[in-house]
């Protein structure tokens, strides 16, 4: 009986720990002020697939041949959207995203519904085809 007591205590403790752990994969976000700008009229296609590793551990692929259109900008760069594929960033929750490009490199994501910027820890070059 004496040996069973710690076990009986440990079960709910682990239960609480793991149930809290379900919520820990958070997508890093910072507020972003989006300025829509249709006058930029910049659009391009991706020449090759681009694999992205999110900081949350999930992976995403920007598909070759998808057309990306500039819809505006935020402080971190220009915001591009595509209608050719769904792009989301994912942690415990899922957010539809646009890509943010600065100096030809992918620097992160703009989450329109949240009005936030989710940065990538390392920039990614984009094989652009105009």
């Amino acid at each position: 009986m004496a040996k069973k007591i710690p076990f009986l205590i440990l079960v709910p403790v682990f239960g609480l720990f793991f149930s809290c752990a379900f919520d820990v994969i958070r997508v890093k976000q910072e507020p972003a002020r989006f300025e829509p700008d249709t006058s930029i009229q910049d659009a391009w296609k991706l020449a090759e697939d681009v694999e992205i590793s999110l900081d949350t551990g999930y992976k995403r692929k920007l598909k070759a041949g998808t057309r990306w259109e500039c819809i505006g900008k935020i402080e971190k760069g220009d915001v591009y959207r595509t209608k050719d594929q769904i792009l989301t960033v994912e942690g415990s929750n899922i957010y539809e995203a646009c890509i943010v490009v600065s100096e030809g490199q992918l620097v992160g994501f703009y989450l329109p519904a949240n009005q936030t910027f989710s940065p990538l820890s390392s920039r990614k070059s984009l094989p652009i085809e105009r």
Partner: protein
Amino acid sequence: MKVIKQIILFSIMGLLMVSCATSGPKYSEMANSTPPISGANARVYIYRTSALGAAIQPNVVLDDRVVGKAVAKGFFYVDCAPGNHRIATSTEVERELTFSLDEGQTRYVRLDVSIGFFIGHVYPNLVEPEKAKSEIENCHYIGE
């Protein structure tokens, strides 16, 4: 021991009954009779293909309004204004999806199930239309 076996047996039977209980016409049967999107709205189909954890049927909340339940093998749709939206489900944790809708656009949200500590988690996921149409085909309409 016999009692435990009976409890397990009844639990399994109960789950099977719940999972088989989804009624209503199939998506494939009512696709042609579904009314068009009204006015300047957009449409979102919400469906669940997985029978895993069929007894767990949390409310589906769209922008803080309950619009349906996450019933296994079931689907429903909601017409709403274009713009940014949030769909959430709650079991032992809340899971959410945020997405945008354009005017006249139809989008598909699948309710996936993952293992939780006490009960499963149901989380909404945005799905490409072509893939969604094939997945939703055998789901039953559970809307009003």
